[in-house]
């Protein structure tokens, strides 16, 4: 580094304690996950401006109003953006090549104002493409219950 100090390689150390985090999802997200178990997509709605949040939020960031209204959304939505992934982040934090590329889509559920990022089960994607949610109420982890999307047609 030009400082004239040769200290050798700083070793990489993995700290021998596994921290466990147990995030509370809160009542809003819990209601959302409970809905998916019954095959329903529930979004919260701002009582002031009518913005619809999926995943739900408790507070509308624009109005600072508590979103105590709920709406049930259809399974269909529109692709807002997408990317074909050739890599994923490995446990060491580096980008490692995927054997098979996969498509990640950013979907606005019909009736919602915010997006969900998920996998697309399909060959190709385009912005504006209609898609349908793939719900898997049997998933072990409730976060996987909204498993992804597939082309609507």
């Amino acid at each position, binding site marked *: *580094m030009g400082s004239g100090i040769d*200290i050798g390689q700083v070793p990489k150390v993995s700290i021998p304690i596994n921290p466990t985090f147990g995030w509370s999802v809160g009542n809003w*997200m819990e209601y959302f996950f409970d809905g998916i178990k019954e095959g329903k997509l529930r979004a919260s709605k701002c009582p002031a401006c009518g913005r619809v949040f999926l995943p739900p939020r408790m507070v509308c960031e624009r109005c600072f109003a508590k979103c105590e209204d709920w709406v049930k959304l259809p399974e269909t939505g529109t692709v807002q*953006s997408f*990317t074909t992934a050739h890599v994923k982040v490995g446990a060491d934090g*580096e980008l490692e090549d995927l054997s098979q590329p996969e498509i990640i889509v*950013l979907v606005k559920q019909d009736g919602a104002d*915010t997006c969900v*990022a998920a996998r697309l089960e399909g060959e190709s994607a385009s912005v504006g493409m209609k898609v349908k949610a793939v719900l898997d109420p049997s998933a072990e982890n409730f976060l996987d219950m909204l498993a992804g999307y597939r082309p609507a047609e």
Partner: protein
Amino acid sequence: MDKGVAIIAYAQTPFEADANASREIQVLEVAKTALEAAGLKQEDRYTVISATNDYCDGRTISNMRLVEPAAAYKKNESKVEMDGGYAAIYGLMRILSGDHQVALVMGVSQASVYARNIPGIMMLDPTFDRQRWLLNEVSAGALQARAYMNAYGATEEHFAGVAAKNLDNAARNPLAYNKLAGADAAKVLAARKLYEPITELMLAPFCDGACAMVLASGEAAAKADKPVWVKGMGFAHDSYLTERPLEEMGSLELAARSAYDMAGITDPASQIDLAEVHENFAHEELMAYESLGFCGKGQGGSFFDSGATLLGGDLPVNASGGATGANAVCATGLARIIEAAMQIRGKAGEHQVEGVNTAVATGQTGPCAQENVVFVLGGE
């Protein structure tokens, strides 16, 4: 903020994939060099603000072990956990309050010793996105790139062109490490595909590095050689990435507006001579042209095509190579400010642009450039 606060000294380490030196040694080097250049001694009164991140550093209270090397021992010291540009903002605030005359601000991180893409994943919504392991800073950046292309017709060739310009500029900057003299768009497009449309050469790779800067009140800067004045500044927060239109850089626009208002800039394209932009991906630089008012909304691609932002153009952007050339998280935005100050002082060496008197520099924090900071700097 007429002649309120000036940059009177700065220092950067060479940015490297692996500096083979501890974080403390890197910080010591820049703090020492910057203080000496400012004519300050450790016993003088100054305040110290560092920009570091607990996750990048792998330690809680990341500023704690930096107290001695950062020349902050028994000083009024604090830390922002954002880009180094925010450390400059906080230093500026402290001076403007009248309680402090001089502030040493710095930013550092060492990508060679942390799991590079993990801190970005840890920024995601822990109740949903984080645990699904699809989004990270690069895949989110790709979603933003596609949204921008779709909205305004920018192409992958534009992104590749920007990346090639920055890689080529970086080759003239002895402190940059990601450099490729004579790079062209074809080479960038042919590089390893990560998340389409982003290839490995379109992103600002995380690396090791530190930089420091000394800010002084007008009074304290009176004796300084070629002080560079802070004419304006602004910063802003935007919504989480799935809750905002990704094709816009809303927070950069807001930050620029407030910085320009303060600096009296009404026509940025003609009043600004040079820009140093913190772009984590090539497409972000195009979006920044628009948010900084260099061209109209959606005109980023054609503005680049005009050649204005090349080293010899009317409004060179990232003459240093930008973040593409060197991206040490928490130091990157501060390095942009320092590079802009170097240009105004005429001390940028091989990548010096002629006749720079007013320059703009930006820094950012968060996926898809969620939070941005803007500085407008000027010479005498």
